[in-house]
């Protein structure tokens, strides 16, 4: 067998592109580029490897998030992000999302966050209107830590969408949702769980040299100004 397919994680370049989830999809569907891009070719080989890579977790590791998903009421993607080395292809991810949706969609997770086990993963989820939010961790992970991450994410999105938790609003502000995921998790490591902090970082509050006011504590006029800007942005599209 090809040595790099046995342990694709040994090459740091490969490991990094695996970590960044679906990003490697940029550029690995032309064969000419495969040969010129060593990391991409390694990934395709690891995909064809029949025995899946089992990452050995020990209790002493820092909590690792495997995926963050936002699906709609039919199980379609709104925004997703994977940090799972065993789920790097779109086909695997889509299959996972189908399983996730089939298992959870009939439950009522509109009040408290709900939880279940799925294929040796712990899945915590919370629904709002036609949006389904999921955070997935390894089987042995502390469930309450996963729940903290989910709550942080859910509340941050809720703040950013100004409480309108609907698929349409989420798609109209997809940049904010994607940034919220980016501020929540970095390569599987929990970056921040405080919804206010996440929302402030996403909207780059403080970047223009202005006073950093948390989104929740804005004055009425500030809120109106921001809302006005939002509306203009949406009309301009």
């Amino acid at each position, binding site marked *: 067998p090809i040595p790099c397919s046995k342990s694709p*994680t040994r090459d*740091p*370049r490969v490991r990094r592109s695996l*970590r*960044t989830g*679906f*990003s490697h*999809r*940029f*550029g*690995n*569907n*032309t064969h000419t*580029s495969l040969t010129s*891009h060593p*990391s*991409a070719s390694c990934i395709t080989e690891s995909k064809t490897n029949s025995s899946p890579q089992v990452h050995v977790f*020990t*209790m*002493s590791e*820092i909590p690792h998030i495997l995926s963050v998903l936002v699906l709609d*009421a*039919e199980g379609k*993607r709104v925004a997703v992000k994977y940090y799972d080395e065993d789920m790097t292809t*779109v086909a695997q*991810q889509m299959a996972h999302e189908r399983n996730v949706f089939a298992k959870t969609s009939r439950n*009522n997770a509109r009040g*408290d*966050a*709900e*939880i*279940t086990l799925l294929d040796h993963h712990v899945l915590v989820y919370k629904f709002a209107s*036609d949006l389904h939010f999921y955070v997935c961790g390894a089987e042995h992970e*502390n*469930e*309450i*830590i996963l729940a*903290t991450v989910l709550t942080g994410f859910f509340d941050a999105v809720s703040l950013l969408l100004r409480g309108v938790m609907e698929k*349409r609003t989420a*798609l*109209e502000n*997809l*940049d904010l949702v*994607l*940034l919220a995921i*980016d501020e929540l998790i*970095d*390569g599987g*490591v*929990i*970056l*921040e769980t405080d919804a206010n902090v996440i929302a402030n*970082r*996403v909207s*780059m509050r*403080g*970047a223009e*040299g202005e006073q950093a006011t948390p989104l929740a504590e804005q004055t009425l006029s500030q809120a109106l100004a921001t809302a006005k800007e939002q509306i203009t942005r949406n009309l*301009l*599209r």
Partner: protein
Amino acid sequence: MTDGHAESSKKRDEESEEGLDFSPFWGIEKGAVLQEARCFNESQLDARRCQQVITKLLYLSNQGDSFTRVEATEVFFSVTKLFQSNDSNLRRMVYLIIKEICPSADEVIIVTSSLMKDMNSKIDLYRSNAIRVLCNITDAGLLGQIERYLKQAVVDKNATVSSAALVSGHHLLQVNSEIVKRWSSEVQEAMSSKNPLVQYHALGLLHRIKQNDRLAVSKLVTQLSRSPLRSSLAQCLVIRYVAQVIKDTKVDEVTGERPFFDFLESCLRHKSETVIFEAARVIIELNEVTTRELQPAVTVLQLFLSSSKPILRFAAIRALNKVAMNNPSSMTNCNIDMESMISDQNRSIATLAITTLLKTGKESSIDRLMKQISTFMSDIQDEFKVVVVEAIQELCLKFPHKHRILMNFLSNVLREEGGFEYKKTIVDCILCLVKSIPDATEAGLTHLSEFIEDCEFTYLSSQVLHLLGELGPSTADPGKYIRYIYNRVILENATIRASAVCALANFGSCSVALRDRVLTLLQRCLYDNDDEVRDRAAFFLSVLRTIPETDSECVEDPLIYPLAPLEASLRQYLENTGDSAFDLAVINQIHNNIASHPDMHASSFDCPSMNISSTKNDLRESENIITSRGEFMSYGPIFKSCHAVDLTEAETEYKVTCTKHTFKEHIVFHFMCSNTIEDQILENVSVVMDAIEGVEVFAKVSTIPLGTMPLGHFGSTFVSYKRAQGLHPVAKMACTLKFTSKEIDPSSGEPESEGYEDEYTLEDIDVTVTDFLTGNPLSAFRKVWDTLPIENEKVGDYSLGTRESLGEALEAVVGILGMAACEGSEVIAPHARSHTTLLSGFFVGGHSVLVQLNLGMGPSNSVAMKLIVRAEKPYIADMIHTLVSEA
């Protein structure tokens, strides 16, 4: 709830019709978006528009659209132009898309300078994001240039920047661990940050930097366990690290206390649920945790059970489920809470509650429990049902008296709708119960024969038919199964018909009374459409006719060849497309080949791991190796195998483990050796054993050396002894590893021609009575007890000293004897002052040994034990007493 559901689905329908038109991405197309991306190159940048185009690109990628490398490169180049704009929201999106594109090494250079500039920006959010992006796309070479900035950023007063640098440190450890290790004093400083997340990231990184230095970790943990951290996530990490340290250190033998246990216990009183739960989880997972240690953890988990949050309930019940596996008696107080969870809205929680209850349940509560479960079963999915059925199987093996009600339950669920996996689990479960509980055989067979009347799965029908053929003839009324079986011959497909024919034939051969009728039925099968069915019918007809009228014997001989080599030789035969017929004698040749080629041996038994642990797999593997060796065939079947014991210290040049296999008259020591150093070759390896004690009992028979000790794999060498009958089988063996060592010349890579002989002293091996004693769970203990001669009964009284509880005392005694508890008698009622446990086992040679164990707890918790032993041979009963009194 159904109303709400219908309403929402109606609403959804409306939305999907209109929704598409309103989606901002409706009709989006990759080519068009790539065209739009040209606006990045304009001299007057429209920040809003650029932001929207980036969002569209990310949307496409997120929906699973792929970009070619050329397209990605083009997008990347134009994106780099956007650093000219000072719009902070646009800049944020630029950071995001660069991470998504993950540019190749030669492209990274283009953004490096822009990102370096942002890393030194006055704006904190630019600094933090630039760090994350740069670390994400950088390679080891570039890292050297930015290292200084990163080190500085770790101790930045802004939490965002510090966190970004620390988390990037986590990822960089995989790229270049040396550089990150140089940060340890800065990381240490960041640990005292006021921001909880910074503290968490710093602690995680510090531990990873130091994790190979056991002393440093232990020091860090000791220091951290004294004062609680501000961040609850960080506190969870401390708990995990403490657990690791506990695992690596031994229990204090004088006081019997674990180091750091007080700390874990104090974390159970933390204000954060996350920390409380982490501590409880860790306590549960401790090695050989005692009931006393478990108690505080179980108490907090019990509180979680009644929480309003599903996640807390789930976490708690999942943890308790683990407790129930090994210490069911320590959580009897939770039973009431768990029973109310059977009707939990969240089905995962309900299922976990049921399986936990089935593990902790007492015999008296089974009826009530089964009633509750029956109502629950109809409204859950198959995958949950499978879990429940598996738990019921365990329960039934534990309380064989209850087989009637449990079997009824199984037959009821078998009749209901269900998929293949579910049905298979039920059938497997009944098969297992039928085989292990003699009283349940008839009922089980009846249920199964009814099941195949209406079974849509060929695989299951065949399996049931085989079982009917195997067990049916020996039941009280074998005639009644014939009808079920013959019905299959009439109604089913060829595969099932063929299985049915075999089953019929078995009835014919075992029961003289039925033979004529079976012959008639088989005669009819000769006209079957299918070749295989006809062949089998014809074969069995001729066999049955040769059996004398009055004799009964089984048609099918048990397979006399070991399976693994048989399979290997059949494969080999199929590969060589020769014309010659398959020769069974080849099989023996094959094992010798396997034995002499360690490489092939490794691949055929699939033992690539260097990690020696005494798991069941290793044991089975070792058993496989033994049974596939021709040398030990004459010893008969293995009576008992003991878990592998390490005979070498960790991290020595050789790794040797020993597994003891006991046979009727022999004992074989199987040494698995592996070489851990690349530049040496060890040849002609053997273990020399000398009995220090027990010389008169064991006589050496043979030593089988190993050609070369493989690197990374295990090679096997054996020593076998014959045991003198009737003597107390106890011995101590001194072991020495002997070998010829050859060094590999580093310049040529070839081994030297001349080696030198060397030896290495291994740990001693003890042989004890328990090696010759196995557990044998009985369903009707009393019956067997009465059949054993009363004159062989030996009674003895023992004092077990002061014990925490009866459970602990019982655990200790059962641990020494290694016998199986019967009829669920190992479960002790809480706060009981006396208890009787029934133990059963086999002594080598198939002699039954039964033990009644009466425990009583006096004042000040001193435990007294009365041990009544009955065995077929008086010396065996004596042996049990010696075993207990010497322990």
